[in-house]
């Protein structure tokens, strides 16, 4: 209920138009991977999913941002049930892949931003290796490329007041991991899948 309200509110504020270039399979775990340029990305991508998919989807988010204030913690934990990961000190005990794989194991889905940090909204990439490891460990999960357009203008890096502009979230066709495909080739292909969704 609260999740529905938050989702509807974020779609309205971000003026989000949702495009499904390729409709997803209803069943099965998915890893939605997207370009990253705004703190709103997590919220808006999550809100753009239809309810049945959204309820089984957990965004992967940085603990240093989403754990920082009471409101963010509440949103991350109670509303969109984020998987909070460490970005600063990655040790064997805090290996971010473990909790992600555990989510997929349970049949749920993930939202990841493989760039690892927010870009300027103009260039996309390079992707970090985590996506490749997820694909290799869970070949049954669909990797869904998502392109987020214009959120970098609504709330760019370093700003805290959002502008009321319109944005567009596009979901594209799933690129499969080819057997024995090298890590970098796969990552470049994944970047291209996101880039290809950018509208002229």
């Amino acid at each position, binding site marked *: 209920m609260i999740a529905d309200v938050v989702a509807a509110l974020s779609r309205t504020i971000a003026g989000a*138009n949702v495009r499904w270039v390729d409709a997803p399979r209803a069943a099965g775990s998915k890893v939605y991977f997207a370009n990253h340029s705004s703190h709103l990305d997590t919220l808006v991508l999550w809100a753009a999913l239809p309810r049945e998919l959204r309820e089984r989807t957990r965004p992967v988010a940085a603990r240093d941002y989403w754990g920082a204030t009471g409101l963010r913690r509440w949103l991350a934990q109670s509303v969109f049930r984020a998987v909070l990961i460490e970005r600063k000190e990655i040790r064997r005990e805090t290996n971010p892949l473990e909790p992600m794989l555990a989510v997929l194991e349970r049949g749920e889905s993930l939202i990841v931003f493989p760039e690892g940090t927010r870009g300027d909204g103009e260039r996309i990439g390079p992707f970090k290796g985590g996506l490749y490891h997820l694909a290799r460990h869970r070949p049954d999960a669909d990797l869904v490329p998502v392109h987020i357009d214009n959120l970098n*203008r609504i709330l*760019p890096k*370093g700003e805290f007041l959002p*502008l*009321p502009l319109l944005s567009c979230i596009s979901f594209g066709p799933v690129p499969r991991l080819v057997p024995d495909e090298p890590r970098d080739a796969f990552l470049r292909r994944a970047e291209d899948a996101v880039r290809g969704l950018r*509208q002229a």
Partner: protein
Amino acid sequence: MSADPEVVRLLAGVGGLLVVASLAGWVLARRARSESARRTIANLNARTRAWWVMVAVFAFSMWVGRIGSVVLFGLLSFLALREFVTLAPTRRGDHRALFWTFFVATPLQYVLVAREWYGLYSVMIPVYAFLLLPTRSAIAGDTERFLERAAKIQWGLMLCVYCLSHVPALLSLRIAGYEGENGKLLFFLVTVGQMSDVLQYVFGKLFGRHKIAPSVSPNKTWEGFAGGIAAATALGAGLWWMTPFSPLEAAGLSLAITLAGFAGGLVMSAIKRDRGVKDFGTLIEGHGGILDRIDSLCFAAPVFFHLVRYFHT
């Protein structure tokens, strides 16, 4: 204003016209065979639907009175500006300036219109916003394409907010012997302007041969222009009884509205072509298209306002 029998008669007339248009569109859509015919009719029906919404919104604003109309047009401005800025790329250094544009300049303009403070609302955006917004962008320190970015912000604000705010401002003009009836001026402006758009389209489809500016808008022809403007001017003259104008004055003002409206459509087409989109509504499906419907109104409103203000107050 709500009990004015002339207003009721007008709304009933427009409502009747729309019922006919909707029925005709429905019948045509069922009979259309070729792909191009289907597309033309779909376009026509989309226009009719937009008209229903506008008339409903309009009747509502007449009913709630002056402050209601100010709020309504303020919201329209906000949504139109949102479309405009979305399609006119700015840079990160403009973020704060845009924040001021949306959340300070826009509401302030409508507050001033609501307070009937003509001396300030007629200069606030062209003078003060004009000076302050680029200052804010300059403080942010990004000089790339600076003049272009500053121009885009000012242009969006002038068009979507300043120009459009002259529609509800009509309600505060004091015209001797016409007190409390200004709602009909709004009706006159919008009806003549929108009918001119429709009639230019119809005349263009029927008789269009010579294009006015093929590189900007291939649909605009001299035949459509002449026929549409003449017919809309005649229509406006025929509505003189609801205005404080003589039939001749009503014709002159209608001509001014239609010419300004034509200019608005042409200029917005040039902007859309430059940005590589057909409509403000199609790039971002499901949202907007507001600017596509009100481009002519934005141009016509301040012209009509100042003509009426000069000759009748």
